């Protein structure tokens, strides 16, 4: 919205030196980036890169081990998110979020879901229940307004026909849209969406894009988006931040990121043809060899695990006791760095045979190409 304003306040969210450790596992290490007001910022990276963890830190579900998260509201006030209690982040800092594994109030109707989202506003209007209990008229108008707002978002999400059905009865794609509508009913300035296009068919994905662009253009709400579907990311985002093993490996416009060799190496998230051209440009046969091995299913979560993962807190504690340290050498991006730092080798596009690449990269490259053996990962050690 305030594109003209180049000051610090241009950034709605500033993440500075954010670290999150679970026991010995460094889920996020020294991450800094900015999300600009009125823009769609995408956060991408392979599975387990720490994207959801960043969201959990921003929305107060986790307290970061280190770092500062500053949210600048439109009215000039700033909040340090790491200091606010969980429920005050949506209420005061106006940050709303959705979840990777959809969390709706499935036994309540769509309308009720959107009314619950307006809780704080309605609580005040009802005089913290006391006045409302006696049929105070101020509450009645507020309640009618809240229903109008809910209807507005139901229309935007194309769900108004099902307003009186239970949320649990909706198909998957509609549940995703409802979760976004519910988040929007809190009147957020920053909307954090965790893989909103996961599990959607192409048509639903298009509708989602339209909804997000509509939110961006008409409400002035800035969006922070985690997404594996590169079509969505490239089409709608203004700015992309790429994570791998909790570290930022790239940051910039979608185009810049797409052609960044570190990103390609880490994350096969572009069209096959693009990989080909980029690899020819970079001219690294080793990278191509690496990619040819395809995703390693024995390491890392399988692609379905993220949808059905339990509640956020259910995953807490599984690493307790064991010290898991991610070797820096495990990073694909690091390997690219190391090699391009070394003497340039002659490019031989013929050997690359990119057309024979396994089609496993098709479903939006959900699975990362992870190192197979410790020796393999140690090879590129000592980068940065």
């Amino acid at each position, binding site marked *: 919205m305030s594109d003209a304003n180049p000051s610090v306040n241009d950034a709605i969210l500033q993440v500075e030196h954010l670290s999150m450790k679970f026991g010995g596992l460094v889920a996020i290490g020294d991450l800094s980036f900015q999300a600009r007001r009125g823009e769609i910022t995408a956060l991408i990276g392979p599975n387990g890169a720490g994207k959801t963890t960043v969201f959990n830190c921003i929305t107060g579900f986790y307290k970061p081990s280190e770092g500062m998260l500053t949210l600048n509201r439109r009215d000039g006030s700033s909040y340090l998110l790491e200091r606010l209690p969980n429920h005050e982040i949506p209420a005061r800092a106006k940050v709303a979020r959705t979840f990777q594994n959809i969390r709706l109030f499935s*036994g309540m109707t769509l309308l009720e879901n959107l009314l619950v989202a307006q809780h704080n506003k309605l609580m005040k209007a009802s005089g913290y229940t006391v006045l409302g209990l006696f049929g105070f008229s101020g509450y009645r108008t507020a309640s009618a307004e809240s*229903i109008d707002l809910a209807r507005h978002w139901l229309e935007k999400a194309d769900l108004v026909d099902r307003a009186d059905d239970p949320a649990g009865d909706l198909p998957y794609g509609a549940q995703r849209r409802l979760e976004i509508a519910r988040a929007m009913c809190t009147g957020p300035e920053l909307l954090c969406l965790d893989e909103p296009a996961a599990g959607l068919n192409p048509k639903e994905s298009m509708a989602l894009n339209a909804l997000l662009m509509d939110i961006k253009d008409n409400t002035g709400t800035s969006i922070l988006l985690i997404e594996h579907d590169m079509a969505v990311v490239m089409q709608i985002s203004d700015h992309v931040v790429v994570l791998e093993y909790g570290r930022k490996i790239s940051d910039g416009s979608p185009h810049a990121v797409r052609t960044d060799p570190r990103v390609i190496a880490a994350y096969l998230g572009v069209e096959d043809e693009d990989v080909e051209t980029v690899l020819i440009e970079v001219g690294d046969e080793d990278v191509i060899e690496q990619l040819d091995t395809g995703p390693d299913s024995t390491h890392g979560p399988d692609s379905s695990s993220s949808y059905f993962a339990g*509640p956020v807190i259910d995953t807490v504690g599984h690493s307790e006791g064991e010290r898991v340290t991610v070797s820096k050498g495990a990073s694909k991006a690091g390997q690219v760095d190391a090699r391009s730092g070394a003497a340039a080798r002659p490019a031989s596009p013929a050997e690359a045979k990119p057309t024979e690449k396994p089609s496993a990269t098709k479903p939006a490259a959900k699975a990362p190409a992870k190192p197979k053996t410790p020796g393999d990962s140690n090879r590129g050690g000592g980068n940065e």
Partner: protein
Amino acid sequence: MAVTTSPERDIVATPMQRATREALYAGAIALGLFVLFIGLRTDQNISNELILVQRWWLLAVVVVLTMAGRFLYVAYGQPFLANQKIVDVATGLLPQSMAARFFRLPYFIAAVVTVAVLVFLAGSLDGLLGPGLAGYARFLRALATIYALASVMFYFRTFIHAHFSALGITALALYPIIVVLVLAVYGGSVAAGFQGSLKWVDNYGIQILIYVMLAWGLNIVVGLAGLLDLGYVAFYAVGAYAYALLGTQYGLSFWILLPAAGAMAAFWGVLLGFPVLRLRGDYLAIVTLAFGEIIRLVLINWREVTNGSAGISGIPKVTFFGLMSFNVSDPNYIAKVLDIATSSAYYKIFLYYLILGLCLLTAFVTIRLRRMPVGRAWEALREDEIACRSLGINTTTTKLTAFATGAMFGGFAGSFFAARQGFVSPESFIFLESAIILAIVVLGGMGSLVGIAVAAMVMIGGTEVLRELDFLKQVFGPDFTPELYRMLLFGMAMVIVMLWKPRGFVGSREPTAFLKERRAVSGSFTKEGHG
């Protein structure tokens, strides 16, 4: 064995063969289960020695009954139920429903005639049939009455369904009047009517309504907010003792102490709420259970204040808003003021309307709260706590308000209980009470006021009815006391209802707001809550 249970054989086997086989299995299981429970019994002989009484005939009867039941069910019950779903080839219609075949006009007329004849003969039954048969005749009369009432309800079922709440409240409001009128006609005088109404108004009316109120209070915590509370009776105890102590020590009136007891219980609800906020599910249940026990043990052991297990007696009666009293010795005793005959029934009838009013207050507040942000937040909390926090709902205060509101109604019910009994002791507040209240909430359907009221009526009324079944003494011998089987029946009823309706009598949920039309939400979507 492997051959007989294989699917191919199952298809070939006729219902008779299957029924015989299953009856044998059932008999074997029953034998194994009951051989020690029923077949043997330890007893004391005259010289106080422990002896083993063998009751093989009783065991045989039980096993044979089990087998017969299983046989009939598999041979006739299952095929019958299956046929219910098959459309008639000629007419293209489903067969008449069971209920339509069961409730028929001729049967109804027969039932009414039976009741009329037996009522007419009531006085001379013992003389005509002898005490043994007279018992059966009375039982028959009760059955015929129930059948006639059920038929009437069946014929008007759509109307009743549409206006259930209004009809229910009207029936409850008219209940004491009807009881007094019927008994007055029956007994031939108004005094007899009042005297006879005591049992019906007190044991059935007030007793059931107290449980309705308690279950509605607990419903806020368990049914709406999804917080499993096994110590609810503690708040009932706090309310009762608050009224008993303040009433006996300071002579304050019921109308002052009622809100005070509610506030006190709500305070304790918040106090309990704080430590258990971070707990969920089983852990929460155990801590609340412990809290209930702590309160009871404090009441027993803090003798100076609570008079220990001897309890507090002489609790003042409720007055008619200070205008009239129900103490015979007072100058403004109701019978003197209104110039009518002295009777203890007035107080009971007054108490009945009082608890009815309190119940309606509970229902009104619950319905109102459900449509307000706080009530929606309770239900949202039951559905998904993490999503609630992501929407800026303060889950701490939301849980505390649920605890406090539920506890407050428990406190109201407690002070009413103390006023009604005139005596309180820790014995009334044992864990079993919490369990019964929770069972009523679950049976009725969590969150549904109507379902819970029906469940309370069935469970509490049903156990009271057992006291009426004196004629069973003629069958099972004079030692048989039907009341002792209360809990057995309670348990059996729970199992049956849970098999038949796993979500309770009313499993669906009424939405609190709607855009186009209000449609009930099926129970399969709602969650029970984890904390």
